[in-house]
């Protein structure tokens, strides 16, 4: 199977160029429809809890989908991706509290900071193999976490960034208004997903799949594997950071837990839950995990046991994510209806 996929990696350079445009229009259309539906939700239901839920989905969804670019598409199992989530939240929160620049400026500046950090950390990490890559990313995550804990004068230590993040209005968007925050989060989510989809479907995205399936072959063809891995590491970090920014805006603060390793663990779990073979799998996983978390914490104080059993069910029982099943089911049905050219 790996041979087959690796073989496919070389062809789509041609095929993708022909097919890319209609598919891109389709993706943009889906994104627009999704955004309109999300934007209409508050006028139909008007429940604050639902909006809160969607905002959290936006933050975690961007984070988890960006992790899938690494885990699912490139085969880089990062156990420290959460550090960029934390960096985004802290970077944005600090920028707003200390400098008082307009929100878009702070947003861009936070992404720029994430970019620099991700280039440095990525350059060190991506040349390591599988399990060592997982460990070093985990170590960097913990390094950033302990830096946040120990730099009390700047970050507030284990108390987190408190006192609220100022959210001055810009371009007649007032993020301290719950509805405005909701619409902005949805817009960021949809734009982020669309961009990541473009990355995944681009020739570069197929290069990543090829590196995942057979890195040696990729480098023989003349692909600079190290550079491709570093590029996707940095890009994924930017989207994770955006997720962190949404989270900081939502809770109006930043806490050390945002940079703790469990965020990365949850991200991996979300990917597992939804499935890494489809682009929207992590998004489905995010919704599932948040619903699961909310219901389980309401029902029992021992939510670790319930969550653990669910993970075991997926990892040992099903051996794949939910979206993988859906896709396979569709493929099977299609096969029964009649032979179609793939």
């Amino acid at each position, binding site marked *: 199977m790996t041979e087959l996929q690796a073989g496919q990696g070389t062809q789509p350079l041609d095929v993708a160029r022909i097919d890319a445009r209609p598919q891109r229009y389709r993706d943009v259309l889906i994104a627009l429809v999704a955004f309109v539906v999300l934007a209409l939700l508050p006028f139909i239901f008007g429940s604050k809890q639902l909006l809160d839920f969607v905002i959290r989905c936006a933050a975690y969804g961007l984070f988890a989908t960006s992790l899938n670019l690494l885990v699912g598409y490139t085969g880089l*199992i990062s156990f420290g991706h959460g550090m960029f989530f934390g960096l985004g939240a802290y970077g944005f929160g600090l920028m707003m509290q200390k400098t008082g620049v307009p929100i878009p400026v702070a947003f861009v500046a936070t992404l720029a900071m994430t970019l620099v950090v991700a280039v440095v950390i990525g350059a060190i990490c991506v040349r390591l193999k599988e399990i060592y890559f997982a460990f070093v990313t985990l170590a960097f995550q913990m*390094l950033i976490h302990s830096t946040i804990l120990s730099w009390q004068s700047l970050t507030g230590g284990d108390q987190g960034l408190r006192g609220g993040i100022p959210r001055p209005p810009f371009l007649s968007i007032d993020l301290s208004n719950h509805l405005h925050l909701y619409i902005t989060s949805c817009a960021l989510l949809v734009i982020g997903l669309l961009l990541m989809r473009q990355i995944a479907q681009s020739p570069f995205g197929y290069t990543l799949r090829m590196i995942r399936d057979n890195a040696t072959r990729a480098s023989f063809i003349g692909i600079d594997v190290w550079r491709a891995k570093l590029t996707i590491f940095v890009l994924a970090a930017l989207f994770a950071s955006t997720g962190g920014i949404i989270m900081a805006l939502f809770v109006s603060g930043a806490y050390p837990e945002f940079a703790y390793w469990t965020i990365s663990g949850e991200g991996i779990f979300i990917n597992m839950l939804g499935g890494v073979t489809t682009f929207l799998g992590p998004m489905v996983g995010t919704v599932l995990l948040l619903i699961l978390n909310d219901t389980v914490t309401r029902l029992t104080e021992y939510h670790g046991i319930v969550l*653990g059993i669910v993970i075991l069910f997926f990892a040992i029982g099903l051996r794949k994510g939910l979206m993988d099943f859906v896709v396979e089911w569709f493929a099977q049905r299609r096969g029964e209806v009649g032979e179609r050219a793939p």
Partner: protein
Amino acid sequence: MDLDALASCLASPACLVTQTTSGLIIGMLLFLVAVGLTLIFGVLKVVNFSHGAFYMFGAYFAMTAYQLTGSFALAMLSGAVGTAILGLVFERVFMSRVYGRDVLMQLLVCYAFVLIFDDVVRMIWGPEFKSMGMPAAFQVPPLFIAGGVVPPYYLLLIGVALAAAVVLGLGLARSRIGKVIRAAAHNPGMVSALGINTGLIYGGVFALGGMLAGLAGALAAPVRSLTPGMGFSVLIESFIVTVIGGMGSIIGALIGALLIGLIRSFGSLGFPLFTEGLMYLFMVIVLVSRPTGLFGKEVA
């Protein structure tokens, strides 16, 4: 940052002795946990992300046994044997299903058990901090070496851990079982073809690793407080140890554990808030210069 405190400690022999012994016991406890981790990785090729839970169970088993019987020896024994059985069951029932699957699956199964084990402990022993208390036999005045304070229990702890290291090292190098284990690590297919039950070896190695971690937990119970999450920080630190020392290397685990122990005890003087950060920094430096660790071999 408090570099003056560090400098003045380095200048005084009394402080030097105190800090070194405290570094040694941290290192020795870490070694016992890390050596199991590295052994399991070397033979089974899985990273046991839930290894910290065995340390935790060892401590709780020892505390309960001590409260029931009042015997320190029985407490140590139940900590070690209890976790060995737990390790065997865990390996045979769950871990053996994910051998040869991708790393992601193995990490997830272990992640699930980190969550489950922590909650099980919370259910049985409650969420609050517990303490076993120093056994009566060791409630004696501390020794003074060059002016530094050294509790006798620390000496016992270091001695037991060193003995375990020697027995383990010699056993793996010399005994028949040790040779079989090393052969299984190298080529399980061949070992199995020679009529040796590899499943039994895998289970045994996992039980041994669990036992060592449980022993570490039991030894730590009198000097540390017990909480449901206590396994995790130990796990992260022993990961650092195995990664620094080289996955699969016992001598690497020993050296790595001692280095981390000393970094912790002296780092807490110079950089009280950044002690943990120092360890991660050290790990990053080692990995960048030697990706397979100080004593690790190139993995295929």
